[in-house]
C-alpha cells in the first residue's frame, strides 16, 4: 500500500533517517545537560535562532519542553529544509498548544522513535511534551536539571494526554 506523506517524506528510509537524527539530537543535548537551562521566555528558541546543530555537538543552551522537542525535529530536517511542521510558526516559536494543531495523533502501540508524548493539561494545551526514544523511554526537558531520560510515564508526574507523530 502506497503512502503519501503530507510533508514529502515519501521514503521510509528518509523518515527513518530523520527519526535517527532527531534521536541523535536529543542525545547530544542529554550529553551536554550540565550546560543547559530551562526557560519559558523567548530565549527558549535561541537554539534554532542561533542555528545550533547537533552534528556540530551543539545544543540549545536555554529551552523548555516544547522548544526542545521542536529543536530535535528541526535539527533532524535541515537537509530537507522542511517548513515548520511542528508548530507552524516558521521554526520561530510555539508551545504545546500549537504543537497539538499539527502532526497526527497515534496510539501508544504505534510509537516510533522521535514521536511526541504529551502530558497533563488539556487535550488542546497539554502541560508538557517529551520526545520518545524507544524502549518505553522518553527524553524530557521540563525543569532545571533536565534533559533527562525518564520512563514513558514520567514516574507518575503527569498523566499522558496523547501521542503525536510529526515525522510522517
Amino acid at each position, binding site marked *: 500500500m502506497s503512502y503519501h506523506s503530507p510533508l514529502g517524506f515519501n521514503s521510509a528510509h528518509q523518515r527513518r533517517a530523520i527519526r535517527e537524527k532527531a534521536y541523535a539530537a536529543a542525545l547530544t543535548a542529554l550529553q551536554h545537560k550540565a550546560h543547559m537551562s530551562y526557560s519559558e521566555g523567548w530565549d527558549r528558541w535561541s537554539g534554532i535562532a542561533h542555528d545550533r546543530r547537533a552534528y556540530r555537538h551543539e545544543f540549545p543552551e536555554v529551552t523548555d519542553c516544547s522548544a526542545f522537542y521542536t529543536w530535535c525535529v528541526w535539527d533532524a530536517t535541515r537537509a530537507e529544509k522542511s517548513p515548520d511542521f511542528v508548530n507552524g510558526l516558521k521554526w520561530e516559536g510555539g508551545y504545546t498548544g500549537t504543537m497539538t494543531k*499539527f502532526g497526527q495523533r497515534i496510539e501508544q502501540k504505534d510509537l516510533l522513535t522521535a514521536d511526541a508524548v504529551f502530558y497533563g493539561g488539556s487535550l488542546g494545551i497539554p*502541560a508538557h511534551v517529551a520526545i520518545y526514544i524507544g*524502549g518505553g523511554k522518553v527524553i524530557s526537558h521540563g525543569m532545571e536539571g533536565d534533559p533527562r*531520560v525518564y520512563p514513558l510515564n514520567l514516574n507518575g508526574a503527569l498523566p499522558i494526554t496523547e501521542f503525536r507523530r510529526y515525522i510522517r
Partner: protein
Amino acid sequence: MSAKTSVPIGTTSVVGWSASAVAFGTALVAYLTGDHSAQTVTSVEAAGVGLVMLAVTHLGRYAQVRKIEGTLLPVAKEVLGTVEKYDPGVTAQVEAFVKSEVAKVEEKLTSEDPAPDVSDLEVSSATPTLGGQEALKVQYGTATKVPTAAAHPEANS
C-alpha cells in the same frame, strides 16, 4: 577484490554480488590454507565489507557506511574462527552466512524506526515538576498554517 567491480550508484547487480562473494571466498581460502598474514586477514575483512557496501549501495544509505563497517568487522572475525575450527572447506556456507548477516543489515535499514538501543541510558527515578505550557498561550494567537510538501518541493527529493 570488490574494489575492481563497477557498481552503478543506486543499483546492485548480480555480477557485483557474485564478484564480491568470490573475492570474500578467495581471501578466506587463502587464510584457511595457511596464509595467516595480516594482508590476507585484511583482505577477508575488506571483501566482507565489500558485500555490505553493495547492500548499502542498493539501499542508497551512504550515511550508514561507517556504522555498518563496525557491524561487519566483528562478523568477519567470527566467521574466520568458526570455519577454521569446524569445517575449513565450506566457503559456500561461509558466503551464505555473510549474506545472511548482510540481509539482517538490510532489514534494519529498511525499517522506518531506527529503534536505537536505549538500554544503556540511565533512567531518572525523580518525579519531575512540570507544566508551564498553559501560561505560554498568551504569546501566540491562532494563526498557524499547516505546511505542505507543495510549498517546499525540495522536501520531496
